[in-house]
């Protein structure tokens, strides 16, 4: 199990029971040594999402328009879906906004 601090913002929290922050224990995928960001997304979909999964996930990743931040860093800087998530990491899913 890996303890992760999850955060949802930009409206995504509405899909997760209006919860903006939580701490969760996420199991490592069977056959894997480490938890990846990609696996975390699928785990959050299956275990936390309360409505409309099609607004959070597309294929094995997040929907277009959603940024994933690992420890205050764009996940593209550390491997996107392949990024390793370690104990205590802070992962933010944020929907880009268009309004003004």
């Amino acid at each position, binding site marked *: 199990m890996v303890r992760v601090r999850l955060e949802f*913002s*930009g*409206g995504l929290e509405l899909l997760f029971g209006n919860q*903006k922050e939580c701490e969760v224990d996420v199991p490592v995928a069977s056959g894997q040594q480490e938890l990846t960001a990609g696996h975390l997304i699928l785990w959050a979909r299956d275990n936390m999402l309360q409505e*409309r999964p*099609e*607004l959070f996930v597309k294929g094995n990743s997040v*929907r*277009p*328009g*959603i*940024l994933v*931040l690992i420890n*205050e*860093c*764009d996940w*593209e*800087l550390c491997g996107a879906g392949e990024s390793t998530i370690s104990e205590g990491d802070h992962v*933010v899913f*944020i*929907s*880009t*906004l*268009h*309004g*003004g």
Partner: protein
Amino acid sequence: RAPPRHGLSRAQAERYSRHLLLPAFGVAAQERLCRGSVLIVGCGGLGSPAAMYLAAAGVGRLGLVDHDSVDVSNLHRQVMHSTARVGMHKALSGRLTCAAINPTVQVEAHVCGLSPASALALVDGYDVVIDASDNPATRYLVSDACVVAGKPLVSAAAVGTDGQLTVYNHGPDGPCYRCLFPESPSPENCSRCGEAGVLGVVPGVMGCLQALEAIKLLSGVGEVASKKLTLFDALSGRFTTVRLRGRSPGCVACGASPALTRASLPDYDYVLFTGQPPDDGPPPDLQLLDAAARL
């Protein structure tokens, strides 16, 4: 008294005296502001404070772009308009307000909005562009036009009680909007003010921060928020800054072999690409009475 050794008139030196006193700013930075120009795309919640503060700061020429007119439901956040101006074109109303604050600044109203056909000519005419628009089609168009024209883009958004800010297309490897969002979100993934509501002062904060970034870009003073995204959560009062990816070599707009060029941009179909028209979502009246009854 000896004549001043700078290009500001006595009236300008008086008006901008609090900038001139600033050790970090001073006369040279103010002169660069006075010679600079900013195009503000959108005269709404973000564009209002951005335009007012840039006019006040003395940016030489401001372009205000909108295709819409003032509605009473705008007034809770769009503070450069007034109740008497309901029905007036927003770019014209904005011009009146900016000129009243600072008549020494040139303010140009562009009342047809931004279209693929007109975007490049508009963006070419200014040093810095501010994206204060309210829909994905316009956001992709503004970004593409800035990449093609080689202009830095100060982008912000505000919906609900959240705000976001970054500067695109700046420096040797600053990303553009498409580097971050190569694929358009589906319409259901788009939070817009007309649907989700917005706490009026949130675009106020974000629009002021946009004015600040434009001032940094023009004056050369301070650190520009390139490759950084600032998130604002108004309910907790918390600002977070996160590090963003650099320019993507495969980006269709700013990458090594871009599909979007000065020749192709005017024909690009942004409505098809985003699946949404360049407006702020469904008319509010559909949901308003329901919402108002939800006590």
